[in-house]
């Protein structure tokens, strides 16, 4: 199982480190999985439980985050996913996207998010229930590439560019996967700071009647995994 979570940056104004919420959320997910307190086919359950644990912390956590959880079930050869917000994943088979997450947005540039708001601001802060997460199950095959990333990637690189990069991946060893993931992230980073580039984000903005050009500077996390034979 792996997951990405993208803390919402606006919390800096409250003097809150935006990574605290997303970081604690991910650590809690990790613990639930390590201790076997989860059902592989129900990643939404993991997200719900983790979110609930954040509320149980003595520390008054504040913040919000998107989250995307992907579980690869070794026995059923299935991929189970839960996605809340605009992070997401792609499943690529023989150079084509065969399955992907849906982006969940309330409106332009405002993804669904889990959050804990400061008292009094509950109405002003977007807060979605973890149950609102989109879940899916998908049969995978050997050699399928699964790319999971935050919106920082998808907003700056269209599918064809990602697929192009993935084509370069010949080996399934750790180094070359690591290398590809890095090069995708780096390329997205370069594009994000290109003021003339017509990024997917800019295109989407135009569709929403905003005249925007260039990339979208944002945090970029890319996880790359390949379905392979299980060897102990």
């Amino acid at each position, binding site marked *: 199982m792996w997951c990405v979570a993208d803390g919402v940056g606006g919390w800096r104004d409250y003097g809150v480190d935006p990574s605290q919420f997303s970081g604690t959320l991910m650590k809690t997910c990790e*613990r*639930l999985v390590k*201790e076997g*307190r989860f059902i592989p086919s129900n990643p939404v359950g993991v997200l719900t439980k983790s979110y*609930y*644990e954040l*509320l*149980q*912390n*003595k*520390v*008054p956590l*504040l913040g919000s985050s998107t989250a995307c959880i992907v579980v690869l079930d070794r026995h059923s050869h299935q991929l189970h996913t839960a996605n809340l917000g605009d992070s997401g994943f792609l499943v690529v088979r023989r150079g084509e996207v065969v399955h992907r997450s849906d982006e969940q947005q309330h409106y332009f540039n405002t993804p669904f998010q889990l959050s804990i708001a*400061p*008292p*009094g601001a509950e109405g002003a802060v977007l807060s979605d229930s973890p149950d609102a997460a989109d879940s899916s199950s998908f049969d995978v095959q050997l050699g399928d590439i699964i790319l999971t990333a935050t919106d920082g990637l998808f907003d700056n690189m269209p599918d064809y560019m990602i697929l192009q990069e993935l084509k370069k991946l010949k080996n399934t060893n750790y180094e070359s996967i690591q290398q590809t993931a890095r090069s995708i992230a780096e390329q997205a980073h370069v594009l994000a700071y290109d003021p003339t580039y017509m990024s997917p984000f800019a295109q989407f903005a135009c569709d929403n009647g905003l005249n925007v050009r260039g990339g979208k500077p944002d945090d970029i996390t890319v996880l790359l995994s390949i379905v392979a034979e299980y060897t102990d």
Partner: protein
Amino acid sequence: MLTLLSMFYYICLRRRSRSGTRGEALTSRRAVESGQRAVLPVSVEVEQYAKEVLDFSSHYGSENSMSYTMWNLAGVPNVYPSSGDFTQTAVFRAYGKWWEQCASTPPPFRCTPKSFHSQDYIELGFEEPVYPTAVEVLETYYPGAIVQILACSHNPFSQNPPTDVRWEVLWSGEPTKMLTPQARQFSPNIKHINFPTNLLRLEVNSSLLDYYTELDAVILRGVKERPMLALYKMPVIDISDLSDSEEELSDLGGPFRQGGDGKQGNGYFDKLPYELIQLILSHLTLPDLCRLAQSCKLLHHHCCDPLQYTQLSLQPYWARLSDASLGHLQSRCTLLQRLNLSWTGNRGALTLPGISSFLKACGLSLVCLELSCCHFLNEACLEVISQTCSELQELNLSSCDRLHPQAFTHISKLTRLRRLVLYRTKIEQTSILNILTFCIELRHLNLGSCVRIDDCDVVASMLATRCRSLRSLDLWRCRNLTDRGLAELVSGCRMLEELDLGWCPTLQSSTGCFQHLARRLPRLRKLFLTANRTVCDADVEELATGCPSLQHLDILGTRLVSAASLKKLLRACPRLLLLDVSFCSQVDMRVVQELCGLFPNVAIKKSFTQ
């Protein structure tokens, strides 16, 4: 010669394995092979973390979460070797002497043996039964609470019902106070036992600690083969172990049963007034009384006088109490008023016939019955209690978490109840409403962590109309009490002195509920608003104005309280003893130190996670 040599080898290896570093210690299993296989059996030292938490008496966390719950004690450590207040550890519900100071806490039982310190316990199951060689407890915050470690002969994972359950004390000690809250690995020298075990019990006493103790993991080490005794120190024979032995508790009938006529030939004892001998005997513990009863007819008569048994705490003897021993006590407990059976009777030791026969004989004048963690209780038992003990004023069923929800309806027949503890039980809405309809004399009610109560507002409103003399109410971790319920409660129950609303997330300060509370409850001495993120300066200031008798206040985990309002509170409440401002982001360590300097009589708590 060869044998001696191999023994020597074995000891060396064992010693080396014990002194291994923690890195080594974390490998799940390590074989310590003896030098010469042909002579000694292969002694494999198994090292295991707890597989499952089987039972416990209390915890800080919520019933449907992991944070600060006892369930965290199973498995590998999450925090050690770090120190601090972390969600991933096991935390008990109380610490220090704060809880004992409250009016809701009953006075201790007379004649509790001095060696019995335990206040809370946890039982842990391990995968494989072993002859223990070491027990290690990773304590990650305010260590020093563990006072006893016991091992049980019964395998909790076996399919067979428990028979001939034996408990042996591996280690016991006094409660201690460490100078720092720093983590430590506690590995006392344990007594070696002659049966394999995979069920350990830790008993704690947190009364000397400055804050909640936190436990991270427990390691049981041991060998699978019965070790040759010569290799070990002879077990130290502990006087207290012998003194409480089953035979003595069950002797109680004894050979002198008929001997009431011991009027002559007792020397000076004949000259002492009856009452004086009774007074002297009243200082003895139960095993001492039983022992003395065997000395002569006169003293036997004295030791069986029901006046010696108006208060009886069998909790210290939980490991040995059975239907039989209760039966032996029956004839002398006819005037029993206070009975403590907490922790007793589990794994088949007490049964319905045993307890009901005892209560029918001795329960008629009972006013106080403590039954915490008594998993032998079922609906029929509660029915017997409600029918027999009509004088009952105090009933404690805390952590009887296996008791069926239906069973609680019988409590409503105990209309004289003044104190009722239902912490961590499965009581449901209808039963509690039923109880409140009939038990209108309630003074103290604990509904902490009663997760099956669906609408606490209705319960609060019922309390307000029926139980107007309520002094203390514990709603710790109630998830559905709102400002409406609280407003009704404080309007109806104006005598309230203690109110625990810790971890009640549905109470919002913005409704004015806490200020309303402060204005309505002038007698308030204890208020817990733990982890209510909405508690603000205005609330604290209203408490300062409205509740001058305040002694204990917990506002852990709010970002909205400043040092200024705390100062106002500390000035206005001269009786304040405890103030918990942990994780209040505006109140940093510097502020706490300043306040501590200004108000040295108040224990101001500021927990940390590093």
